[in-house]
């Protein structure tokens, strides 16, 4: 029933999930976040856990509270998230990926950078 792993506290996992959605523009900058109850029902989480996750995102400067209206996505939140994620990718994922590409003997030129053709091939 639950999709939570044992690596991190559940609220942190929800915060990561919501951040990933923000990066995809869901909800867009300036728009309201879903309510605590809506998120709790949707993810089958205790509302206090949802509150902690939203609090963590607010502390990271991604959400702001508007009195009486709830939490909203801060303008510039996506760019901020993208910068953080880029840094994380370069520091953590890229070295691993590079090592794997080297091991497999794959050169940059052999990689297909055009997602559209990849889709066409699959279709």
């Amino acid at each position, binding site marked *: *029933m*639950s999709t*939570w*792993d*044992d*690596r*991190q*506290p*559940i609220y942190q996992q929800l915060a990561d999930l919501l951040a990933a959605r923000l990066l995809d523009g869901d909800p867009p900058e300036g728009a309201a976040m879903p309510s605590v*109850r809506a998120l*709790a*029902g949707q*993810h*089958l*989480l*205790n*509302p*206090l*856990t949802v509150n*902690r996750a939203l609090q963590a995102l607010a502390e990271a400067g991604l959400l702001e509270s508007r009195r009486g209206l709830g939490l909203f996505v801060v303008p510039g939140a996506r760019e901020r998230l993208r910068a953080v994620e880029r840094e994380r990718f370069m520091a953590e994922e890229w070295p691993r990926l590079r090592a794997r590409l080297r091991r497999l003997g794959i050169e940059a030129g052999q990689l297909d950078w055009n997602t559209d053709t990849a889709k066409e091939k699959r279709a």
Partner: protein
Amino acid sequence: MTTADHIAPSTDTLVSARHLSVRYGRKTAVDDVSFSIPKGRVVGLLGHNGAGKTTLMKALVGLAEPAGELSVLGLHPQRDRVALLQGACYIPDVAILPRWARVSELITLMGRLHPRFSAERARQLLARTSVGLGDKVKSLSKGMVAQAHLALVASIDARLMILDEPTLGLDVLSRKAFYEMLIDEWCDGERSVLVSTHQVEEVESLLSDVLMLNEGKLVLSISLEEVDRRFVALSHDPAVAEQMAAAHPLLKYRVQGGSAALFDGEPPPHVQALGRRVRPSLVDLFVALTRKPELDRQHF
């Protein structure tokens, strides 16, 4: 202090139990437990069969005679039972709805029995489910009966809901639908729920607090937030198992890709350095704290 002193009950504490025991003849079913339930919480009552969960719940609604102090919604459950049932609702583990009745008839019945029941709300809640108002109880699946029951009980304007094994025997989708309704429609930050279950893994993320009973004794009463702070789980390579064991963990168990050890409090730094911190799960804590004596003996 006697329970008669609760003239102005604290509105933030819904249940307060101090040195509560329940005896059946020579058997002590609930043994000197103390805890409280504030408003806005979802409290899981966990324990093996026979641990005292049902007895404790019965005491809370005045159906078992306890020794010690007990205040529920500021009331004495046995003496003020009628008043108590205005503000607390209870689905016992043996709950049944009359098989011959139609759902619409149950709504009418509840409306006559309970002054704080809202028929309109019951219809709204039932609209979320696949239960029809004209359906007879005997035509409903087990999962639908459980949802109908929850819809009826959640339509009482109460502050405390007590659910004894509400999802026992339901399939996974029905369990999910049941808990979805509970979280969506009941938990509003003011009301609280006490729910007993064996399916610890499933309810973990729903809970704000946990009460663990072992042979009538309360072995853990803690918020889930505190669990993350107080207990430390280290996943480690089987090669360092001996060093881990030497640090006296509460529990040694297997995780995907290796072994893990659970500690109450921070283990010494040299032990922490041997593993990687993972989230302590409620089910591991449950196993560690409620091991049956015969299981313990196997270690010697």
